[in-house]
């Protein structure tokens, strides 16, 4: 079967690495990656633990199809209690790291305790060592860390997941970056890693991954690739990535703009997919260089971009690496670093994205926090004295370029920006400026024109998220609430299952749930079909919910900011509307089999065998 059947437990406090068997009974009920790691976390930590305390654990988790020939089979997740949210966190990444971890023979790495001094974990197949990071890579950027580790161990094929300065200093939305620009980006998993004095996990694997039914697995891969490869979805993502969504949400009136004070951005044509392709007047080259793919991926949605060398963010400031091609803007980073902060400069947004990659910050949450700070600045609550004279008004590309580096290092106003928008708003007595749910900043969809997305944000177990449910088609067909509770519930369950396979969510559409089940069953055996996969997803969602309830979250946390619930959208399809969460939430609870307080009933717990 395609599980390796082996976990590495890393006790940082006692500097000890121990191998143990994967719990196959749990794997049969929670599959892998998001689901199975959440089961381990829920069993092993006190849900009320401070996320930054040694009692929290951090799990690097692959899925059963990670490292296989399945298209997009390179996904891995970081699972922990989130530093940003105080809720269960599962942050999903691609690149090459996950497959390499599997090739080294490990399904999971469970990290616990806290190292007395900074360390990194070095895995070479079944050999596991904790090595000193102080004086070597501690204090260095993600990009330096990857280079230095490969140089020290003399192997260019080592794959590395690490934190940058942001994770070291506890930026609440610090992420874990692997392969230079792929990230377990959301919920502050990098801050948890930093709190443990763990700088990096470096891995080199030379074993393979076996399928339960090799012939059947090859046939399943061929059949599913036959659907994915010729699909319009794959062709669109390969050609333009996710950036075309900018034009869609702008046209629809669901593009979060200037901290959701507006829902359409008048300068969208300066920061969209077409602008990425347009040759610049300065050097005749386009921002977009090419696309790229993660391990085993036949889609290739990733963007490779090169900055304008004459742009003020880099001209005359050194930064040679910022003149080279690197991970470019995708829709979520693009909206957050442009429309959300009112900036119409795609080069400045690309610079900010590079900084987020190099120093390990979630660009969605950084943009959401900066936009909250801009609103506080315009209200006179953050003063020019606090910003060293920097004009922090909406639309300032200079403010974007300067503050992103301050946030990564914690200098000046950067210390406030590292709090995330919720804690920032509370500090300045204006919690209303935080466009977040459970402390996690909005992705790029304003929930007034997209009613279902509002319910998805409010009920996501990791805080506001565009990947936990998929109400897009329903929301773009009408602005009402009809059927949204059902769509959100069903797609939450499906997405929880997909996130537990080791495959990428972007396959959903060309593939239906039966296509995932076909591959899982051939790879793992045990009788996986579509119905069992969906039931597993529902079990996972409820497991996460029960963790959050035990952590102290309540129905009151299943909500949206007042701006979304009480202030009508000014334009677009949702003009004059607020989000009608109060209509959808009770129906959603009922469909889930939860009581009026959002607590799973005993009947539901028994039905799901939790």
């Amino acid at each position: 079967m395609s599980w390796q059947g082996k976990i590495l437990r890393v006790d940082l406090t006692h500097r000890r690495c121990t191998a143990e068997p994967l719990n196959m009974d749990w794997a049969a009920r929670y599959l892998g990656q998001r689901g199975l790691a959440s089961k381990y976390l829920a069993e092993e930590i006190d849900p009320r633990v401070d996320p930054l305390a040694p009692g929290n654990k951090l799990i690097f988790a692959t899925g059963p199809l990670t490292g296989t020939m399945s298209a997009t089979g390179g996904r891995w997740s970081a699972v922990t209690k989130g530093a940003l949210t105080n809720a269960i966190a599962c942050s999903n990444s691609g690149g090459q790291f996950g497959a390499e971890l599997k090739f080294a023979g490990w399904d999971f790495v469970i990290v616990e305790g806290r190292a007395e001094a900074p360390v990194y974990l070095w895995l070479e197949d079944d050999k596991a060592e904790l090595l000193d990071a102080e004086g070597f890579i501690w204090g260095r950027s993600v990009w330096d860390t990857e280079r230095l580790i490969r140089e020290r161990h003399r192997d260019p094929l080592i794959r590395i997941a690490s934190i940058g300065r942001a994770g070291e200093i506890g930026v609440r939305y610090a992420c874990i970056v692997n392969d230079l620009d792929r990230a377990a980006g959301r919920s502050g998993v990098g801050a948890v890693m930093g709190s443990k004095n763990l700088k990096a996990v470096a891995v080199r694997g030379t074993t393979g991954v076996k399928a339960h039914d090799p012939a059947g697995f090859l046939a399943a891969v061929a059949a599913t690739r036959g659907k994915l490869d010729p699909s319009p979805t794959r062709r669109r993502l390969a050609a333009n990535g996710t950036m075309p969504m900018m034009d869609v949400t702008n046209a629809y009136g669901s593009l979060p703009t200037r901290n959701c004070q507006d829902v359409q951005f008048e300068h969208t044509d300066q920061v969209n997919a077409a602008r990425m392709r347009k040759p610049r007047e300065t050097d005749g080259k386009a921002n977009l260089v090419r696309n790229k793919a993660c391990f085993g991926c036949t889609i290739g949605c990733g963007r490779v971009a090169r900055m304008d060398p004459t742009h003020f963010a880099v001209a005359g400031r050194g930064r040679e690496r910022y003149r080279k091609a690197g991970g470019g803007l995708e829709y979520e980073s693009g909206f957050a670093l442009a429309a959300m902060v009112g900036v119409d400069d795609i080069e400045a947004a690309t610079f900010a994205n590079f900084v987020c990659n190099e120093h390990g910050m979630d660009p969605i949450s950084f943009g959401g926090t900066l936009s909250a700070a801009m609103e506080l600045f315009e209200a006179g609550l953050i003063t020019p004295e606090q910003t060293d004279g920097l004009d922090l008004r909406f639309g300032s590309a200079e403010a974007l370029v300067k503050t992103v580096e301050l946030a990564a290092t914690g200098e000046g106003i950067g210390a406030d920006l590292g709090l995330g928008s919720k804690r920032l708003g509370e500090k300045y007595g204006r919690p209303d400026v935080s466009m977040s749910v459970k402390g996690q900043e909005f992705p790029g969809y304003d929930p007034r024109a997209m009613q279902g997305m509002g319910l998805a944000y409010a009920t996501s177990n990791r805080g506001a998220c565009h990947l936990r449910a998929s109400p897009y088609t329903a929301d773009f067909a009408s602005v009402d609430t009809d059927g949204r509770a059902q769509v959100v519930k069903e797609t939450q369950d499906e997405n929880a299952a997909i996130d537990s396979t080791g495959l990428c969510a972007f396959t959903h559409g060309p593939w239906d749930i039966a296509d995932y089940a076909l591959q899982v069953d051939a790879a793992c055996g045990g009788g996986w079909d579509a119905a069992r996969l969906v039931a597993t997803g529902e079990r996972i969602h409820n497991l996460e919910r029960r963790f959050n309830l035990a952590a102290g979250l309540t129905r009151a946390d299943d909500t949206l900011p007042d701006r979304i619930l009480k202030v009508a959208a000014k334009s677009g399809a949702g003009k004059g509307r607020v989000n009608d969460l109060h209509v959808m939430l009770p129906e959603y609870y009922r469909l889930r089999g939860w009581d009026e307080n959002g607590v799973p009933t005993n009947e539901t717990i028994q039905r799901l065998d939790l």
Partner: protein
Amino acid sequence: MRVRVRLIALDPHGAAPDGLGGSRDLDLPDGATLADGLRALGLEGAGMMVMVNDGPVPPESRADHGLADGDGITVFPPIQGG
């Protein structure tokens, strides 16, 4: 009548050279419906999301949705976020 059509993020190997769409005018007979307009664009039954002016029109309503001179039609595929 003449309506203004805006295509967003269509198939990169389809009508728009860069896959990003564009704007064009479309002449239709008086009394034409949205379904007629989509048919004239070759996009009927293609599973597209459609807005007329600022409002979305779901698939089941397009055959009955009458167009007027000067209307703006926005068409985009059912893309999801990432």
